[in-house]
């Protein structure tokens, strides 16, 4: 019996241990906890895309990909454990999908020479690649989001927001506090009145916040929320009969989970985005043919085409493109994390490239460089239709106010460099 158990353990170890020469993509996912509703579709999209590449193309450049999933539960301690346990397996790029874990990993990944991609979250000033050599946050960051929302409102109001009131309902954490500075700057630039309304984790109880909004009567409400906070906010906004067209969420507050609960009352709610919505892209046919129909879909397989699934897929696609770029730069197919970093820094996303991948017009075009790890920061707006239960893109991917944002990025990254004694510059 003992012998048998021993062989079983060895067999299990052998089955689980890595086959050499593969491209490892750790997925620090959260399928449990208060933010699971957002974590599951993202992780599914991330895994399905790589799975599809393996089945359809035999990996990237002939090298198979492997997704290493590790459950963090949106908890920083578990995130550290996941990072430490996966970094030894040749992990190419980390995408923790949590601002808290990102702050933890920025110095660690830099010390270990592994790149990290925080797509639309994390520390915004990481866009300055001269200071944050291993952190990337293309194609758009929180401050682009804040400015994108204001730009959209400017467009709605004929370029003038003077005397208007804009409230920000935010998750009272590093994530939610990020846009405050930007919005304050923009408020003084455009002459609108800004007010922040914090909501504490997890945000199930927001009666007092919305009472405050009802009393203050802001013209527009912007929301930086995540998880259950979003659907509660949409419901509360409906309860005080706040006009949904004037309620704009950041891209983390704009998925189906957030609006379905409020039913018809959520009709017209808007959210920002930096990628396309829906499953009307050729790549989804490939995912269906090579992954879903073979019974290999990640998770329950019921998330395909949702906003956050698309975001996971987009993240995987950008990672795969960075791998291709790295392979081209170094002339080697089985790349290392250091090469991956070079690939990410030289990444160019063009419309032709995206069309060839089966994702025409899925995201904005952008280039990454050593100075700019944040891309061009183009932001679009989507709107929810409660009758057809779909999101639709209602604006172009438009530029954000880089004058304001660049100054803030320079300031914040300089503070980080001084604090950590980093010499800014391109290597």
């Amino acid at each position, binding site marked *: 019996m003992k012998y048998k158990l021993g062989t079983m353990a060895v067999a299990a170890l052998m089955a689980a241990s890595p086959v050499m020469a593969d491209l490892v993509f750790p997925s620090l996912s959260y399928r449990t906890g208060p933010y699971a509703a957002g974590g599951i579709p993202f992780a599914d999209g991330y895994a399905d895309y790589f799975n599809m590449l393996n089945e359809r193309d035999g990996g990237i450049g002939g090298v198979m990909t492997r997704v290493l999933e*590790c459950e963090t539960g949106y908890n*920083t301690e578990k995130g550290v454990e996941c990072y430490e346990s996966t970094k030894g397996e040749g992990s190419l790029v980390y995408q923790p999908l949590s601002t808290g874990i990102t702050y933890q990993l920025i*110095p660690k990944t830099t010390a270990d020479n592994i790149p990290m991609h925080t797509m639309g979250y994390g520390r915004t000033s990481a866009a300055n690649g001269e200071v944050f050599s291993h952190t990337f946050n293309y194609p758009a960051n929180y401050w682009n989001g804040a400015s994108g929302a204001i730009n959209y409102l400017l467009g709605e109001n004929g370029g003038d927001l003077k005397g208007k009131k804009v409230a920000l309902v935010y998750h009272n954490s590093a994530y939610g506090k*990020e846009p405050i500075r930007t919005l304050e700057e923009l408020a003084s630039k455009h002459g609108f009145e800004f007010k922040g309304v914090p909501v504490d984790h997890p945000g199930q109880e927001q009666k007092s916040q919305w009472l405050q909004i009802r009393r203050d009567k802001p013209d527009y409400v912007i929301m930086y929320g995540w998880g259950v906070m979003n659907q509660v906010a949409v419901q509360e906004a409906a309860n005080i009969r706040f006009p949904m067209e004037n309620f704009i969420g950041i891209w983390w507050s704009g998925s189906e989970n957030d609006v379905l609960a409020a039913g018809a009352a959520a009709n017209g709610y808007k959210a920002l985005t930096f990628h396309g919505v829906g499953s009307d892209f050729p790549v989804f046919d490939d995912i269906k043919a090579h992954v879903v129909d073979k019974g290999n879909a990640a998770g329950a397989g019921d998330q395909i085409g949702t906003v956050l699934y698309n975001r996971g897929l987009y993240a995987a696609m950008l990672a795969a493109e960075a791998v291709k770029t790295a392979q081209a730069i170094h002339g080697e197919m089985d790349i290392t994390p250091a090469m991956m970093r070079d690939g990410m820094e030289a990444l160019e996303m063009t419309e032709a490239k995206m069309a060839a991948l089966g994702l025409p017009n899925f995201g904005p075009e952008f280039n990454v460089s050593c100075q700019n790890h944040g891309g061009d920061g183009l932001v679009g707006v989507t709107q929810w239709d409660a009758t057809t239960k779909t999101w639709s893109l209602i604006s172009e991917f438009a530029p954000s106010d880089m004058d304001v944002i660049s100054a803030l990025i320079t300031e914040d990254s300089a503070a980080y460099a001084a604090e950590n004694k980093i010499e800014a510059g391109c290597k």
Partner: protein
Amino acid sequence: MFYREAGDFSTTYAEDQQTFPIKFDRYRYYVVLFIAIVVIPFVVNDYWVNSLLLPFLIYAIAALGLNILVGYCGQVSLGTGGFMAVGAYSCYKFMTGIDIWWGGELLFRLPEFNIFLSVLMGGVMTALVGVLFGLPSLRIKGFYLAVATLAAQFFLVWLFNRVAWFYNYSASGQISAPERGLFGVLITGPSVAPWAAYLFCLFFTVICAYVARNLTRGAAGRKWMAIRDMDIAAEIIGVNPLRAKLTAFAVSSFFIGISGALFFAVYLGAVEVGEAFSITKSFLVLFMIIIGGLGSIFGSFAGAAFLVLLPVALKVVGVDWLGWPTDIVAHLQLVIVGLLIIVFLIAEPHGIAQLWRVAKEKLRLWPFPH
């Protein structure tokens, strides 16, 4: 056979009253210390230190602290997370140089403390805050005190989120530990060697355990236990409840503050108060001492080890060996921890420490139990 008092004669009071009166026990203790100090630093890697050893050592300090308050003095506290936050934020302020403002102007700025003193100051500040929140314990008892400490938990987290001074006005409200070292060896920051972080925390853990052990078997500890067992009787025999309760709060908070400072500076490197020091942390440490054993130094270590190792062990077995989906394993972990707490409360209210005691009793008689 080996584990026995027979033939082991004490000739002085000091020998008679030592912590480990049995020779075998004493040598085992020396061997454990030797391995911890001399062997482990040479064999550990990043993974072992960051995933297992650091959390174990740090939570052990927190559990020791809470055990003094709850296990020895009988004052239920749910404010552990908040007190750890005080330790972490004081450590951060002292290591970056405390700045005092008055009327919008910088009055003065203390020089930056080195990391050792910063951690120590984390403990001292938490002790002060702990005494402050311990004051209600003179009037209220049991559940009501638990609620009062719960208020401390929420108030402290709110405070560190609300007042930007505590996080040096950073845009995100996060605090991150800058690189600091002792004797030219880095202790905090990303490029710290695993053995250095480990030894730094081990030093604090060993000292804390030593202090806790000697406090609890001395006059102070006896007063705490008298208050725990029956406060009116204790008062009648001359124990001053004010002093006893407040010293328990102070010592307990001091330990918890140290653990909070280490948790932030050495282990995580960057924390956000709402996430890292929420009410969940208070419960986690409380579970540690319940499972480990109330009123036992060994129990604090056992409980911390158990709750730190269990999730990692489950993950290794479930995900890495058996290949189960990660979410199933995460859910299973919640079920198992919950179940264990119920089982312990029913079957062995004195926790792992009691199992250990029973095992030792048996070992004394082994192999001739009659």
